[in-house]
């Protein structure tokens, strides 16, 4: 057992813990796993149903070993834009939309992360619901070989061993995927899911970025003849030459035109003014985050990242912070996305690190700052004694703090430690324009995640804490 953690635990214990809390803390404490990145991505167990086994087996795969892995973007007959446009028209025609944004595939090492947008749809029909009976959850399938009735012939861990697979998206990626950039995804999120446009883009600041426009005028040569300006120049020249005796009766046929009278517009460099943002993504990667909570959090963070990327027209800087009892900044999205879960939980450590970074780099003056934090709601700092002051400090400068709690289903919903102390602190009610909290149920799906993002980033004054 890690000595430092042990000390922390003893300290907490001395201050008094309920047996339930103690149990959870011990579970994380005794967990031997580490945060290393997965060595290679492996296909997670295919939870195919036996019915699919009958109908998905096919000659091409079985006999000729021909399978389709990916659906390359280029072979699609229609682009994502076209599909979405079509979807928008559906609404106009009075039919519900049909296209959804599907799975997101893990980022690649090195880059900031490749986001894959999979437009999906389902053709709705009258079909039998085979899973209508929740009590009858025991699946049955066929089998063959030796053994007596009742004999156990195999086991499969409920969750993959030792935190494997905690990095979501491992080996994900079925057939028919269409690649797109995170920017595209942000666009889709904004347009299609009606995520709000940022109204307040903050103070305009000049960037070292230029756009080119036909704003400058030039005499004699250029790209486009500015007719009005040219005519004016000609008139001026002719007045100077005494060529126009009566201004009320001008005969243009008699104009003398010098080549230098021609005025053109030429391309010129313009300074661009835009606001920019910095986003801190904070993720709890303690032992209790294993499985679904981590998956939900990172998926949501990918979406948030994409949305901001679009909103700020790519002028977004991202910082990634992982924390268990201690926080550390990681260089890229890949590490952020894939680091395995382990260790204990101290939410305050991450907030503290953000405050430190902002202060040290003096980010306040130059950036709109967003902080998104994802956790399962466990915190060894049960009452938020350390977290709340850090959050208050953060509220001094942050445009928005969004906290997502992905519940792992233990205990009552809306009763996690983080949620409790957040509610108790009253910050959510006092500063709804700055801080939001969303609690995701364990079985949240893509639309629910997007719903969650809306709650985290919308501008309407939120009703009481969202659950």
């Amino acid at each position: 057992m890690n000595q430092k953690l042990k000390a922390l635990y003893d300290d907490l214990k001395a201050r008094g813990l309920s047996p339930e809390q103690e149990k959870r803390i011990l579970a994380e404490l005794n967990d031997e796993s580490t945060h290393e990145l997965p060595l290679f991505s492996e296909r997670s167990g295919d939870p195919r149903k036996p019915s699919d086994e009958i109908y998905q087996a096919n000659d091409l795969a079985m006999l000729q070993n021909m399978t389709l892995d990916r659906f390359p973007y280029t072979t699609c007959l229609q682009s994502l834009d076209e599909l979405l446009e079509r979807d928008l028209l559906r609404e106009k025609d009075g039919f519900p939309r049909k296209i959804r944004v599907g799975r997101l595939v893990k980022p690649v090492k090195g880059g900031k992360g490749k986001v894959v947008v999979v437009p999906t749809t389902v053709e709705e029909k009258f079909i039998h619901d085979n899973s209508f009976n929740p009590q009858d959850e025991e699946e049955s399938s066929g089998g063959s070989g030796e053994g007596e009735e009742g004999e156990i012939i195999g086991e499969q861990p409920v969750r993959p061993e030792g935190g494997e697979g905690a990095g979501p998206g491992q080996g994900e990626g079925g057939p028919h995927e269409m690649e797109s950039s995170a920017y595209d995804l942000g666009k889709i999120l904004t347009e299609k899911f009606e995520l709000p446009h940022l109204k307040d883009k903050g103070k305009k600041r000049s960037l070292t970025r230029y756009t080119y426009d036909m704003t400058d005028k030039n005499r004699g040569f250029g790209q486009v003849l500015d007719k009005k300006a040219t005519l004016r120049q000609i008139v001026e020249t002719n007045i100077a030459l005494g060529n126009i005796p009566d201004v009320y009766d001008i005969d243009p046929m008699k104009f003398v035109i010098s080549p230098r009278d021609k005025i053109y517009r030429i391309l010129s460099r313009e300074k661009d003014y835009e606001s920019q943002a910095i986003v801190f993504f904070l993720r709890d990667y303690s032992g209790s985050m294993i499985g679904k909570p981590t998956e939900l959090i990172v998926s949501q963070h990918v979406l948030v990242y994409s949305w901001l990327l679009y909103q700020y027209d790519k002028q977004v800087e991202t910082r990634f912070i992982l924390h268990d009892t201690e926080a550390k900044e990681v260089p890229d999205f890949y590490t952020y996305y894939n680091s395995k879960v382990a260790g204990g939980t101290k939410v305050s450590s991450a907030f503290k690190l953000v405050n430190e970074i902002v202060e040290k780099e003096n980010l306040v003056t130059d950036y709109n700052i967003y902080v998104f934090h994802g956790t399962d709601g466990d915190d060894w700092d049960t009452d938020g004694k350390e977290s709340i002051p850090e959050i208050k400090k953060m509220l001094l400068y942050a445009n928005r703090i969004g906290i997502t709690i992905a519940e792992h289903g233990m205990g009552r919903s809306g009763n996690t430690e983080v949620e409790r102390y957040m509610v108790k602190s009253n910050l959510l009610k006092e500063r709804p324009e700055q801080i939001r909290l969303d609690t995701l149920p364990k079985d949240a799906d893509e639309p629910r995640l997007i719903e969650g993002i809306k709650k985290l980033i919308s501008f309407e004054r939120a009703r009481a804490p969202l659950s």
Partner: protein
Amino acid sequence: MELINQHTKKIMEGCKERAKDQGLSFNEETLEYIVTNRDLIELSPKVMIPTLYDYWVHDVEVLKEKGKYELYPGNPYETVINTQPAISFYNDNNPDWLNVMIFYHVIGHIDFFQNNIFFKHTWDYDFTARALSDKRLIARLRSEKGRFLDYVIEFARSIDNIVGYHNELSLLNTPHKTRKEKRTDYYFDVFLQSEKKVSISQYIKEIEKYNDLKSRFRDAAEESFFAEIEKKHPEFEPLFNKYLDKKTDRKSDLLQYLSDHSPFINKEENSWIKPVLEVVRTTSIFFQPQIRTKIMNEGWASYWHEALFLADDRIKGHEVDYSRINAGVTAMPRVGLNPYALGMRMFHYLEEIGNKGKYTYDFQKIKDANERKTYDAKQGQGREFIFNIRENYCDFTFINTFLDQDFMTKNDLFVVGKRLNNERMVYEYYIKSKKAEDYRQMLIDLLYHPPFIEIDEAQSKNGALYLNHRFEGKPLVTEYIANTMMGIEYLLGAPVQLETSEVTMTQAGQTAPFLLPGVPVPPPPQPDEAQARTISWQRVLYTMDKKKLTKKKL
């Protein structure tokens, strides 16, 4: 896509000869194409039919949600398609011996397509050619009608799984009736019962009279029988004529009904919708037998690729290579199902039964296990027996009739259960049952079976359409009901109602405890507690009116 080369084609022709010698029967002409991955990408959304009509959903990934296979009758990656001539697809770099194996497999499929009676409606025309003309029609209409064409396709496809496939088959198998036969049918089935409303004793008297005449005068009987009726009921003949005029033999499915009766579609300006519905309908009906014979079809093809490959003199020296591939295809998994392996073993088993004469009543009477095992009447009719089965059965009848305890025992089959072991945090796979009836039931539950939804004209009032879902122990997927009904409403131009059954839970489901490694687990719920929860069913009526869905209990 290009044709295979002459060398490979020659191998295929050799395979065909050998297959014919063994009694397989199929059309001589076939087409074999080399496909690349890129071709597959284009072909797979179109169920491997290169000429299928274009539709935007083909360009989007379809969510692999629950019951995906319930939504589509066709398998997206088939090596051979049921066309005239049959078309099959091959990888570029298969070695010759592997091609021999695949060719035999393909020939097995072709034989199955062209002889199994569930495919009868596909025998008279070439689907690819028809699909091509349909594709052109759709393309032309799309240029005229724009996105509304796609809406029509979408809504038609949303009900294409409840097409009257069996109606279509029964039409093909019903002998044509003469006017005389129809008259007899009409007299006894309609005239006496509905028009005259005679008592049962009178009815029986009439039948006896008819049978009596028939036995005495044979062919002349009808004439004298009806001559008498003419005298007794002068109104009979006109009524019968009226009945003939009115009655069409067609029992229509929902798509046909909409096409015939929808006030919306029958408007002058909407007449273009009719051919679109027909395209969707025929396409669906074409694929229907495919998914209903998956186990048999793959079993049959695997049976033959094995039998024919091992007898083929051209590939000596590749037995080991073959065995490795073949084992991958036809091995029975320890846990799971493999249609190839299961179907092939069934055919082997049935061949043995045929050879030993075990399908006879004499054998059925034997109860002694040892005697059953050693029984051999040396009938030697195994091949004949399985050829007959491949002609007349589909997956359901195949499994329901032939998968018996002897087969289970012979192949060490069992039903596997999967349960959660809370203490060890693992799913345990265990042998749940070795009984044939349980295995059969497990398989039958997995088979493709679209809901049976019929039009209830008696209940359709005020222009609204009343659909009745016949309850078969399962509810419909609730999320899909609204949009499906909205589509029907659009095509009908009037409100739609659907009567179906839904589960009403007596007790809320208990949330599963969340478990952490190393933390003791709460004791599992008491068994009687679990049993106390039962399911009860409620008939409900959905109404879709102006795109608003309402539900009420019946």
